[in-house]
């Protein structure tokens, strides 16, 4: 009963604070729109390409390309397994004189890099082939000149065969494991950004709200009633959880319909992750607010707590960083939410695939909530 009353009060206060509401709901949309406009995929990436029965010249050419390493697979099946396991970023399968390319497409910059690498490999190989053909022609002509009429007809046929083959250039057929050809860097960042917005705003606003309760004396007054300390924490959780649902819905609907981003997985799962993340952010915000004496001091936590999480959340690929840096990411809640959301948006993974991420977030939540309930003892001893 008291929990509901507290949740209701917090919600009413928020609803009447139009500027803060606008910040929570409009700011993410504004930033996402700007990013969509600004970002076009471009960065150096390391590619792992699987090849199946591809001409060894082309494969060699690909392997020689900078940042590309080629692995040969005997069957398409084995290659398919490798791409699912994220061991390779693309499969090039040569069949019936055509290239069938499958892109994992979880990282749009890798997809476009693969396309470029294959194109240039083919062009280079073609040129080399042409060179060979021309040399062959020369040889043949010299031979013709040398050994005249008798064998002439037979000799003339060979170069023309070669010519025919060169003209009928193999076609490239593109296929995308996840997403489509429109998937770009923005799409890769989107799920992480979504988590970031939820985390950032809930952290800041809830932290400020509890700070205000403390400085205006309402927390003391609240604690002078028989309310349980846990009731206060849970009441805040319900209200901010609701807020996170609305925020997620707005962001998801806007990105899907207005920004035309493809969400492969279930929107319900996304909401689940975001609500859990919002709870963690709330508990974190409340905990941090006890270390702040003013709103300005609360703002000082942004570079300390929010910004590092952005770096490690997966927006910047971690696999190229040193090992010890990667370990840091394991203690940051945004990493797990980012992983889960990326999985849902880009690869359409199901619940079991993100279960570990959800469990870790839940672990953060339980620990932080416990700390908050105990922490309120500072203001009332029972």
């Amino acid at each position, binding site marked *: 009963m*008291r929990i509901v009353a507290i949740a209701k009060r917090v919600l*009413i206060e928020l609803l009447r604070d139009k500027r803060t509401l606008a910040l929570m709901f409009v700011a993410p949309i504004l930033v996402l729109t700007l990013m969509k406009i600004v970002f076009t995929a471009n960065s150096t990436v390391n590619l792992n390409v699987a090849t199946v029965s591809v001409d060894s010249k082309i494969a060699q050419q690909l392997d020689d390309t900078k940042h590309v390493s080629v692995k040969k697979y005997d069957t398409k099946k084995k290659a398919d397994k490798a791409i699912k396991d994220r061991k390779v970023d693309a499969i090039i399968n040569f069949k019936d004189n055509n290239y069938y390319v499958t892109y994992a497409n979880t990282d749009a910059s890798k997809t476009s890099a693969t396309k470029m690498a294959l194109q240039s490999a083919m062009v280079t190989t073609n040129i080399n082939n042409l060179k060979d053909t021309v040399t062959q022609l020369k040889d043949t002509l010299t031979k013709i000149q040398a050994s005249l009429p008798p064998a002439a007809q037979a000799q003339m046929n060979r170069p023309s065969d070669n010519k025919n083959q060169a003209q009928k250039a193999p076609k490239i057929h593109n296929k995308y494991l996840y997403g489509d050809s429109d998937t770009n860097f923005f799409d890769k960042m989107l799920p992480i950004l979504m988590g970031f917005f939820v985390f950032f705003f809930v952290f800041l606003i809830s932290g400020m709200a509890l700070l205000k309760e403390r400085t205006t004396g309402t927390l003391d007054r609240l*604690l002078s009633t028989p309310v349980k300390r846990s009731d206060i924490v849970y009441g805040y959780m319900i209200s901010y959880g609701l807020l996170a649902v609305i925020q997620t819905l707005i962001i998801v609907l806007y990105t899907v319909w207005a920004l035309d981003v493809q969400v492969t997985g279930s929107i319900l799962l996304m909401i689940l992750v975001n609500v859990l993340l919002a709870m963690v952010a709330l508990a974190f915000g409340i905990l941090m607010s006890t270390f702040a004496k003013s709103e300005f001091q609360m703002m000082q936590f942004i570079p300390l707590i929010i910004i590092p999480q952005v770096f490690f959340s997966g927006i910047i690929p971690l696999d190229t960083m040193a090992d010890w840096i990667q370990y840091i990411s394991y203690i940051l809640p945004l990493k797990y939410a980012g992983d889960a959301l990326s999985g849902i948006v880009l690869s359409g993974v199901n619940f079991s695939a993100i279960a570990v991420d959800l469990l870790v977030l839940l672990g953060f939540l339980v620990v932080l909530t416990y700390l908050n309930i105990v922490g309120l003892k500072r203001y*009332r001893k*029972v």
Partner: protein
Amino acid sequence: MTENSVIKLSHVVKKFGNDTVLDDIDLVVNTGSIVGLIGPSGAGKTTIIKTLLGMEVADGGQATVFDQTMPNRQLLSRIGYMAQTDALYDSLSARENLKFYADMKGLSASQTKEEIDHEAKVVGLFEDLDKRVADYSGGMQRRLSLAIALLGQSELLILDEPTVGIDPALRRQIWKELKNLRDQGKSILITTHVMDEAELVDDVALLLNGKIIAFDEPNNLKTTYKVNTIEDVFLKAEEENQ
């Protein structure tokens, strides 16, 4: 000590680090009486109140309210508390503030409705119940804060400087109401640093540097110290203690 004491502090000691804030405090508030706690700022008034509400725990001695040792969460439903700050939610209306605190105290729905109207009338805010607190004047906010403390027919009221920043007419009105409540059998502990208010209470405790230097009826104190006002009592008691 009498059996009908509501608050009983015996030999209470409170330290913050090496700083002794309360030093061997004895204080009794009997049922149906108003006890004033006066002293300069920093004397320990708020710490006594916090100990009574269970926000702090005494390092020594015993603090009991309704014969039970504090801190005790359940007992808080029988105590009405008004802090030095108004402690109101600005963006809510007065009615929403009252409703919220009534919920926190655990009043039933019907009781809540009845009491909101009643307490609002007592503090003269009935007409303005649906205005936002942000639009209230300072005096109105103070009155609303008092109304919240009165919610739930609490048997004990603990009021921390309730008349600070209130104009004289309203102050008189509030004191009239407090005496009314006392006559209904409620007990009130009030802190103030306005000396003439100390004349209005039943018993007055003079608090200085964490010690109670005198505790008696105002008139008795004046006779003992052979002076005409509580202010003079305070100054004289202060001299004697230095």
